[in-house]
Each structure stands twice: as C-alpha cells, then as structure tokens.
C-alpha cells in the first residue's frame, strides 16, 4: 500500500502535464479538432464507453492470447537452446534477425496472407513479445551458479533433475522480467496489426477516428491502450511477488 501511495509524485507530474495541455489548447495553440484538450478526451471516454469497451475486448483478447503463445514458445525455445548449444548457435542469430523486421512492414504481409481474423494479430503480438522473454530466460538459465550444478552432480542428480529442481526455478525471476517488457510491447504490436487490417479493436478505432475528425475519440482509444498496458504490467508485478517472493525486489514495479 505504501508503495502504491508513493505514486503520488507521478500523479502530480501527470496533472501538471494535462493542465499545460488544456491551457495550450485554450489559449489557441491548436484547434480542438487537431489537438483535443484533455477534458474533451475525458468526455469521449465517457460518451463512447460502449464502443471503447467493445474495441478494448477485441484488442485485449489479441494481446492476452498473443502473450500466452509468446510465453509458451519463448520458454520452450529458451529451454531447448539452453540444453543444446549447437541449437542456440543456430537459432539465436535468426531470433535476433526476426526482431529487426519492422512490424509495420510485416503486419500487412501477414494480413494479406491470412486475412482479417485474429490469426495474423496473434502472430504479430507473439513475434514482438517472445523475444524479451527468450533473452531474459536464457540469461536466467545460464546465471545459475556453476558450483551448484557441481554439487548436484555429486548428489547423482540427472541433467533433467538439475533443470527442474535448480535451473528452472532459478530462472523464474528472469522470466518475469522478460514478460514485463513483453506485455508493454505486445499492446503496441496489437495496434500495429489492427491498423494493417482489421474491423474491430482499439487500433482499428484509432485509425477510423482520425479521418472522421473524431480526434478526441482517437485519443480516448490511446488512453485505454495505455491503461491496459499499465494494468498488465502491474498484474505481472503482483504475480511475481506471489510466485517468486524470494527474488522480489521492489525495483521495476510501477512505483519505481
């Protein structure tokens, strides 16, 4: 609770920024159609709540499913690469290469290939979010103390038992670190995928609202995305505290 309360500094900064923005539009820095003032965005959040909610559900589904796919693939890939150095050498460079392809380039290609359904969105979300999980998990596996492995060998532990008893639990905090990075980029990935071709979702709503000059609604969609990403991050932090309390240090949670 104390840590949640310590967020007040961030709230003060946010309020100051919003105030400055409101004032800027008020004083004629930009017309409300180009740059909707915060109160108009708030108004849209309320007026368009049904539309925003249904769009949110679509995007949330893509993001959550995409992250689940990414986590499963990332954990399996990291484990395989940890066990077989030759496979690591074969796959690691390709994995890095996969991250250098810009998503705005890749998304339309996938849509063209697989259509407007959820499939291509999942691929895009998974593609951007599996990478941080693989990298941190792999680092977690290899960070296990060499002495500990030797100790287990004198206890006649098989390679498999060493993995399940030592390496996997030891790497869990790293998995969480990767997942926390992943959830934030996953939301970005979903929006790109929707903009490349979709008929629902927050990214789609944003894309549609701009040409209709419903800028306040577009901004409202962005607010919902942000809040969603922050909520996912907070949820993971909570899960981390509950599952690996022995490794939890209150650095890198929302309250900084």
């Amino acid at each position, binding site marked *: 609770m104390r840590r949640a309360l310590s967020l007040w500094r961030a709230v003060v900064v946010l309020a100051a920024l919003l105030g400055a923005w409101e004032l800027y539009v008020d004083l004629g820095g930009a017309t409300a159609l180009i740059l909707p003032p915060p109160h108009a965005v708030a108004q849209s959040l309320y007026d368009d709540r049904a539309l925003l909610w249904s769009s949110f559900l679509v995007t949330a589904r893509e993001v959550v499913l995409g992250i689940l796919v990414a986590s499963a693939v990332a954990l399996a890939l990291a484990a395989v690469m940890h066990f077989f150095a030759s496979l690591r050498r074969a796959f690691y460079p390709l994995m890095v290469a996969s991250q250098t392809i810009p998503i705005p380039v890749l998304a339309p290609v996938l849509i063209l290939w697989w259509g407007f359904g959820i499939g291509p969105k999942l691929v895009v979300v998974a593609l951007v979010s599996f990478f941080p999980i693989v990298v941190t998990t792999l680092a977690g596996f290899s960070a296990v103390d060499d*002495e*500990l492995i*030797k100790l*287990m060998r*004198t206890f006649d532990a098989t390679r498999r038992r060493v993995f399940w008893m030592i390496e996997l*639990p030891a790497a869990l905090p790293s998995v969480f670190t990767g997942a926390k990075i992943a959830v934030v980029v996953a939301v970005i990935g979903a929006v790109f995928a929707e903009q490349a071709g979709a008929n629902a979702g927050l990214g789609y709503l944003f894309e549609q609202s701009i040409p209709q000059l419903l800028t306040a609604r577009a901004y409202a969609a962005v607010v919902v995305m942000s809040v969603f990403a922050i909520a996912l991050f907070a949820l993971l932090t909570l899960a981390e505290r509950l599952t690996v309390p*022995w*490794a939890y240090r209150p650095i890198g949670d929302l309250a900084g």
Partner: protein
Amino acid sequence: MPAEGVSHVVIEAPPIEPSQLHAPGGVRVEHVDRTFTGRTGTVHALADVSLRAETGEIVTVVGPSGCGKSTLLELICGLQRPDAGTVRSAPAALMPQRDLLLPWLTALDNAALALRARGIKRDEARAAAAPWLERFGLHGFEQARPAELSGGMRQRVSFLRSLLAGKPVLALDEPFAALDAITRAEMQGWLARVLASEPRTVVLVTHDVEEAVLLGDRVLVMSGRPGRIVGEVPVAAARPRRRTDAEIVGLRERVLRALGVSR
C-alpha cells in the same frame, strides 16, 4: 556419472536411515597432476599430489588461498579428471564453501535436496530429513527460508544436505571460511561432535591452521602454485580437543612452520 579413470562404488538402493548412512570407503589420490589452460594463461594447479584417507579418517588439507585445494576435492568427487596420476575414491559428496542454499526452498527442503536429487519423493525426503534438522539444532526452523537463517544455521543445513547424500566420503571445501570468527569457532566444535557420532571419511580443505589441527586425524600441508604436499602432521590428540590444549598449540606451530610461516 563418474568421470573416466575414477572408480566409483555404486550404491544401489540409496540409504535413508541414519544408521545405514555409514558405508565403508576410503580415498586414494596418487601422484596427481592438474593443469588448467585458460584465456589468461596456464595455471599449474596440482603437482604430484598424493593423499590417502582411510575409512572413517578425517584428513584436513591446509594451504594458502589458490593452492589448488578445491581442485583436489573436485578430483575426489569425480567432477574433474587428473592430467596424470590416479584418483580412486568411494562416492563422495561435496560441501561447498558458500552454502548455496536455494532461496526458494525451506530449510527442510534444502536439507532434503540430495534425497530429491536421487528421485526420492518429496514427502519421503522430508520425513527423512526432519529428525536431522532437530538433531542439528534447527528445530523450529524447518519452514524458514535461507534468508531468515543465521550464517551458522545456513552452514549446518548445507552440511546436512551433503551428509544426507548418503555417500561414505565427504569433501568439505573451506566450510566455515565465510563465517565470523565467533560462529566459526562454534561450528568447528559442532562439526567435531557431529563427526564423532556420525563417522565419515572426510577430506576437509581449509586455510585455517587451527581448524585443520582441531578437526583432523592428519593434517596435510600444501604449498601454493603449483599446489604440492609439503608436509604431513599426524594429530594424535584425544577428542574433544580444545584450541588451548598445549598439544594442539604445539601442532599448530608445526603446521605453520611447514607452511613456511616463521615468527
């Protein structure tokens, strides 16, 4: 999985009962040479090192830091192979210098780790380890995480973990080096009492001359880089020993002289 060139006795059914934990077995290290080649150059760790420990004997090896003591223990445990010479040992369990307790396990589960490593079921392993925790003065701390234990307690759990591996030989790598002087003195007395009631073949390496003399039946003195045995001091003093006993003090001086420390 024993390394080639190291003969290991395979214990078929892992013993759990304390009374069964004791099995015969000695250690023979003969004319062993070990050299490491790394990026920073070549390190001659051990040169013509021989060591014998009979069943139930406590051999302490004392030498300066970096004299290849840990390498010697890893050879005995079958974690390394000698470049020359032979190593024959009954199965040995290592007790590392740092306790290396798993932070996510309770004291009880940490102590039972060696049993779990052999595939013994969780409940069975816990049931086997629990009475030992009590014997080791850890009653009431079964469910404590390592972070909640004192340095001495952690070291006792670590020792218990290696003891419960059920190997006839224990290879102790500077077990108390990380402790403060007062706790270290307590733990030395504690280990002497435990080994009196639970005899094992023990090879203990240390850089603490007093510890070597207090605990060992025989003290081997090692020189640094390359590590070689430069002296052997039998300790016939009766147990329990006190560090103030004239005999112990005299032997300590002898070991120090063998190490080349004169005053």
